[in-house]
């Protein structure tokens, strides 16, 4: 089928794009290093260039690929599960809920910033939020129910986080947590990669296996079940994996929204809208988007680096509104 060649080409193009952006990510920064030297410094000792590239920029590049990829595939899987192009972990309030879990652990002193307890708490927070939204809106719920439930849960988690911050005994902690919540990949080390990678890779692997079920869900839950799909298990896997991905991302990089919402939209028309074949290109597009955003925040001239979560929200919200505007007829119909 010509579609396959198209999907293959798409994956190859995105791969090349990611490689180019990854190299740019190693080269760009306060001390610019030419790309060829950055590549050389990665594999052989080039003095201070090697220290900058390996210690500072490599973890950041790896985290952008891992987190962006996970956000992308999570968005694609949630949109497939709920048959709704507005679904995404961030629309479900998952980053806020994950942040709440992490904040509770950090600022009430249960664990340090590099403990595995942190991602686990964040994952638990995300699991509760996504599980709640899917339970409320999943079966028959339309777009309006979905967005409203996500908004409510996100707001609640945000308010609880604010409460936790305001009760925090340490004033420095308040500044630190607020900046962390904005989302950033600055000053991350290989320890952060090691902390998050197992969860992120597991989340991606779980979601990759749901492709055929998501494709069958195009026909609705009953028809999918009649085709032999275990709809309940699919729902559980997608929710759990999305929570793993959102929780692990938030634990090391703070809240980065809208990448998961946008990435599937960019690739879907190129794979004939097939929910199964949207998964891998969405992951790659998400990785490319986050790498590009992380390069962009280093290039924007400002005193302190613009937070990547702020940038993705600034760019993502207009896209979100554009999708809503395109589906306005359906939304109005659902309210009436």
């Amino acid at each position, binding site marked *: 089928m010509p579609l396959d060649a198209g999907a293959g080409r798409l994956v190859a193009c995105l791969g090349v794009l990611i490689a180019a952006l990854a190299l740019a990510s190693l080269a760009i920064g306060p001390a610019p290093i030419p790309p060829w030297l950055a590549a050389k410094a990665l594999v052989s000792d080039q003095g201070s260039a090697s220290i900058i590239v390996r210690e500072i920029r490599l973890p950041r590049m790896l985290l952008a690929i891992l987190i962006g990829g996970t956000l992308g595939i999570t968005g694609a899987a949630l949109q497939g599960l709920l048959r709704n192009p507005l679904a995404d972990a961030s629309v479900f309030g998952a980053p806020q809920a994950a942040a709440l879990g992490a904040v509770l652990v950090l600022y009430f002193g249960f664990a340090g910033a590099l403990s595995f307890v942190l991602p686990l708490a964040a994952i638990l927070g995300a699991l509760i939020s996504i599980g709640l939204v899917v339970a409320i809106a999943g079966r028959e719920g339309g777009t309006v129910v979905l967005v409203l439930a996500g908004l409510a849960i996100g707001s609640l988690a945000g308010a609880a986080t604010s409460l936790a911050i305001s009760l925090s005994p340490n004033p420095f902690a308040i500044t630190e947590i607020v900046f962390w919540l904005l989302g950033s990949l600055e000053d991350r080390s290989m320890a952060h990669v090691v902390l998050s990678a197992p969860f992120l890779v597991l989340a991606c692997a779980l979601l990759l296996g749901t492709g055929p079920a998501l494709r069958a869900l*195009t026909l*609705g839950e009953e*028809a999918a079940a009649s085709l*032999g799909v275990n709809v309940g298990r699919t729902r559980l896997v997608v929710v759990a994996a999305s929570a793993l991905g959102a929780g692990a991302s938030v634990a090391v990089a703070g809240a980065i929204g809208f990448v998961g919402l946008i990435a599937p939209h960019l690739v879907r028309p190129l794979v*004939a809208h*097939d929910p199964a074949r949207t998964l891998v290109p969405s992951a790659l597009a998400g990785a490319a988007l986050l790498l590009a955003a992380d390069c962009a925040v280093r290039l924007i001239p400002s005193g302190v680096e613009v937070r990547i979560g702020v940038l993705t929200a600034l760019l993502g919200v207009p896209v979100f509104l554009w999708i809503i505007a395109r589906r306005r007829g359906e939304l109005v119909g659902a309210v009436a």
Partner: protein
Amino acid sequence: MTSLVLAARDLGVRLGRREVLRGLDVAFRPGRLTIVVGPNGAGKTTLLRTLAGLVSPSSGNVTHGDAPVQAMARSDRARAIAYLPQNGEVSWPLPVRALVALGRLPYGEAPERLTPAGRAAIEQALAQVGLLGFEDRPATELSGGERGRALLARALATKAPVLLADEPVAALDPRHQLLVLEVLRGLAHAGGVVVAVMHDLSLASRFADRILLMTGGRIVAEGAPADVLTAERLEAVFGIEAAVSSEAGGLTITPRRALPVG
């Protein structure tokens, strides 16, 4: 097509607190097209869903041959029983060929990985519903009738010995209603078990080998159309006064007025 009897024994189904089906005993034999009729809320859709193994009975059981449908492995059941739901949901603008290819999922086939048998089944299903030439059209851009036929083709592509179709002709124009019912009858007469739910009684009488009349979760009557669809039964079950005349090839049933309740 080798086919087994699909049978329900003492079948009861509860949805929440409501008893939707009670004490149904019915057997669907290969070679016959059975059309289920009855007023809204009679339990027709629930009967089809339970026969398809999608709803757990609260009492009794459904068997295909000797195998209880509930206990069959999902993929075995999906290969044995094709189910066409009523809602006609298509969430993404998949090309028609990819939509129909979903019928091959029970065999582990995907649109990009089809066996020669799968490819042939899809071609044949598209030809049966008259959608050859529509393969690359996005399913969401089809008319209601074309979409209904594409979804039927999806069910046909499974090549299951049992086909359960919930209102397969509801959205179709008269010509395509006839074409689809001819496909269903052809499938039955080739040895399949085919059960369809319909509201058009005249059309049902023209195509059904057997009519199953339901109300209140029970089967009121079953048999040849002329024996089941009498003016007295229509009055008792549907609450309508109807003129029933028999003619070559079926009945003409004209509802005249709704009778007052009680």
